[in-house]
């Protein structure tokens, strides 16, 4: 659904590692005591500390984009972004300029989505199952928020040459569908580019990159949340 259809395309399979080191900034921020998001918060003693780190859910938050050197047309149909459960799905989205996004409220209560500092997407109520289309006006990174759900923070990255995007599963496995050509695989998390660019040459046959997992996590010392385990 999220991957634009490509005729005569090949599949690029890949594997990322370190995705469980990507700390969700919203959750990490909420965990800070000075943000008044709880009256008490304590760890469950039977859960191992490595799991208590608030890493993001890669299938929704780690966006892998195949970037072409040439110009790519925006898809004809809008990309659906559901709003619900305190976040959008996906959380981070990379699109080509002119790509239309369709937000749909999947919650039984209303949302008021808006783009931070962007007049083209002002706050507006979205009732249950309501939809709202928006096209990012230019290349850049847009942060989306909801006036009625502080935990909702999403990012739309508009970038030239975005030919295809995909999301890994919880194990880090992913695949992209690309037309033959030269591409660079870029990884986006919380509105930022992470990891190293991975060049890939796509021909008529599928490409398997799983033998060489791509490290996406930021260095631990920079990415580790302060107070995430408080």
């Amino acid at each position, binding site marked *: 659904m999220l991957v634009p259809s490509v005729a005569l395309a090949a599949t690029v399979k890949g594997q990322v590692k370190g995705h469980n080191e990507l700390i969700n900034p919203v959750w990490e921020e909420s965990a800070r005591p000075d943000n008044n998001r709880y009256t008490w918060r*304590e760890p*469950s003693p*039977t859960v191992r500390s490595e799991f208590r780190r608030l890493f993001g859910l890669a299938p929704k938050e780690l966006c892998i984009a195949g970037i072409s050197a040439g110009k790519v047309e925006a898809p004809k149909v809008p990309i659906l972004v559901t709003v619900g*459960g*305190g976040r959008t799905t996906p959380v981070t989205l990379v699109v080509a300029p002119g790509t239309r996004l369709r937000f749909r409220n*999947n919650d039984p*209560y209303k949302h008021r989505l808006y783009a931070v500092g962007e007049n083209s997407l002002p706050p507006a109520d979205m009732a*249950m199952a309501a939809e709202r289309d928006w096209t990012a006006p230019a290349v850049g990174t847009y942060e989306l928020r909801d006036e*009625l759900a502080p935990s909702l923070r999403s990012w739309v990255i508009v970038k030239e040459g975005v030919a295809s995007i995909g999301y890994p599963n919880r194990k880090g496995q992913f695949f992209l569908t690309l037309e033959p050509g030269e591409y660079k695989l870029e990884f986006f998390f919380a509105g930022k580019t992470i990891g190293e660019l991975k060049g890939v040459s796509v021909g008529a046959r599928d490409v398997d990159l799983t033998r060489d997992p791509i490290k996406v996590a930021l260095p631990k010392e920079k990415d580790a949340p302060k107070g995430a385990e408080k």
Partner: protein
Amino acid sequence: MLLSRFWYLILALALGAAVGGLFLANTVYNRASTESMEQALSADTQVVSWYINDDARRRSSLLLKVCLDGTIRKELSKASSKDDKVPQDVRDKTRNALAKLVEEMPRDYKFSSLFAIDQLGRVIGQVGFDQAAGIENFDMGGYAIVADALHGWVRDDAWVLDDRIYLVVARPVEVDTAQMPAGAVVGLRIIDTSYAKQLSKRSGASVGFFAGGTVKAKAAPEGVDPTQLDTIVADIKNLANDENYKEKGKSQPKILMGDIGVIYSKIPGEAWDLGAGYVVGRSASVVKTPLDLVKLADDKEKKSQPWWIVGLVVLLSGGLGLLFSVLEHTRPLRTLKAEAEKLAKGEIDMLQVSKFRGLYRKIASDLNDGTDKVAAKGGVPRKAADLESVLGPIPAQPEMSAFSFPVGGEGPASQGKPASGPVRPPAPRDSGPRLPVQMPAPKPSPEDKPKMPAPKPEGPKMPAPRISEVKAPAPMMDDDMEAEDDDDATVVSAVPPEILEASATGAHAAVEEAGEISEWHNVFQEFVRTKKQCGEPTTGLTFEKFQNTLRKNRDQLISKTKCKRVKFTVYVKDGRAALKASPVRS
């Protein structure tokens, strides 16, 4: 009148002090009441905060049973293992297990809604949140509290969904300690009136919860009207400008509509940023006027006051006021009335000035003067004045008075011996027997009963002398004459018989000395001159009569004081000419 006036001044000052004290008490009461209310509000706010925290912990403890439930653990584990569609039977079993567990929870801590969520954040089963029943792939994994629970944390939160406030707690559901939690259980408790009542009942505070600019639930302890909190609706919008509220999540105490104090607090959680919070309120027990203080007192307080002190103060104040009024107003007025009645009946022909004090004495004196003038116009002379009536009561035996003589039975009157000098008929007296003192003024005719030389009709304001009642003749003496040692005792008392006898037989021949006569003549001249200066009548006043009087007084004084001679000097007393006799021993 002086005491009464001072008393009125004291009463006025006391009244002013009482009124000022009441206003001061009003202000002090309002300030103390406001401070007390603010402290109570802060305490209430803290209590509510503790209650919410404690309530969340209790509820999280209740979730333990859910997290340890075998069905929940098993089904969540199954759901989490599938990235794609979750089998329906997993959802059904999870929902049924949740429903059963919710029913077993204590009523006071029962959740409004309960969710079982897998590792991907999908809601596998829920009860109590019917609005989400038809939504496929209902997801809650984006909420921080859910993410926390899925990562092994236990915590609380507060959500605002469609302007309704929910208190949320979440726990991880663990299956294998070597792996991430299989899911999480999230419990929601909507804040409604029943919750507010429960909170108010246990905390004793009047509390209201607000979101979206309106009060969502409110409750107050028994006896307190919770509708008072409705007044905050108009004030909620002002919270945007309250720096304390924005930064610290708690406003300063505020008084709304003049009669209710409130403190606003944010609810920790996502609600913190969504303008949701709670407000505690208390009646600001302020009074507008001092009289309102009385209304605040209940019967028990009113009965417990030391009313006997109040009564005593009232009695003493009233008693003193009445006493002063009687002493300074009623009594002299009655005396004046009695004297006036006597005057009207003819029992006296003048008011006895000595019975009056202050202004009444002046009034009596003026009345006497007026009487004199009227009498003079009618040609009726007034009786000689009693010195006592002019100068007040004369001591029976003043030790230092040159003109003090034994009174009563020892006097010549009691012995029936005639006194030297002219004998005057007795005048009515209202006091004990006193020797008459008569003015040596000339009388217009020998037939005049008082034997007192009457003043001229045009006489000035000199109180006329009068004859006091006596039982025997007594030596005459000028009522204007005083001894040097006592200004008020110009004279006079009973004269010892031996002195009178000696005087009659001419034993004191020394008075015949020419020098003394000459001196008396000078005194006479000065006396006449002084009387004229004082506007007193001098008609009929002759030196012969004058010297007779002086002689008698001289003899009495010599006999009394054993002095060699007596010196007479003229002076003015109360606007009248008077004589003072001074014994000379050398």
